[in-house]
């Protein structure tokens, strides 16, 4: 089961996990990304490529499902304006054993950060706006999964 969504609306973590719990595996792992309120951030705007972003999310999910022999994978990414504390991204994986579920989940979130076409603009309390620059540590985290045989 591969389930990938790109949406403005909030998602229901409990409902998404229940889909995976029902697949008969021995382990379900998940990651929920939350908008941080650092530096007086008041809004995070997520821009995406209408034709490309969902296709890339789907491709990454399919690759992970195959590599770790997953029973199921859910990838949800939000777009639009989000407030601090809002959930922004959700990745969950179901596998026969915990190792595959945990590794696949970590790999997917690392690769989403560097390979899915999203751009983030922060609005701060004084009204100033800035586009988030990619971090070298994110590139290194994603590259690790490719080096390790992806």
């Amino acid at each position, binding site marked *: 089961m591969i389930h990938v969504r790109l949406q403005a609306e909030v998602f229901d973590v409990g409902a998404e996990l229940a889909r995976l719990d029902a697949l008969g595996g021995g382990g379900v792992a998940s990651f929920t*990304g939350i908008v941080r309120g650092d530096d007086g951030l008041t809004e995070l705007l997520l*821009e995406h*490529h209408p*034709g*490309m972003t969902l*296709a890339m999310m789907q491709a990454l999910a399919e690759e992970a499902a195959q590599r770790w022999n997953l029973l199921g994978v859910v990838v949800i*990414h939000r777009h639009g304006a989000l407030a601090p504390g809002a959930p*922004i*991204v959700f990745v969950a994986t179901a596998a026969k054993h915990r190792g595959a579920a945990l590794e696949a989940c970590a790999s997917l*979130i*690392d690769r*989403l*950060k*560097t*390979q*899915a*076409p*999203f*751009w*983030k*603009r922060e609005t701060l309390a004084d009204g100033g706006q800035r*586009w*988030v*620059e*990619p971090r070298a540590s*994110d590139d290194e985290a994603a590259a690790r999964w490719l080096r390790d045989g992806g």
Partner: protein
Amino acid sequence: MDILYFAWVRERIGTDHEKVDPPGNVRDLRGLIGWLAARSAGHESALSDTSRLRAAIDQQFAELDAPLAGAREVAIFPPVTGG
């Protein structure tokens, strides 16, 4: 050819897309970006430093030396920051 712009590239140029007909001597992405940069002060501001730019041809990521041959859509944007 449809050109799409995202994030600060879009903001500096002042539009999220435009239709262009580049001359025959524009053969790769780098050449296209250089040609687009001459269209306005906003284009120049957004496109002059290619080390800060990434691109996709027909919705596939591509290096800046990739040939344009038959491209219908080119997207130009900063490095991505998802997750």
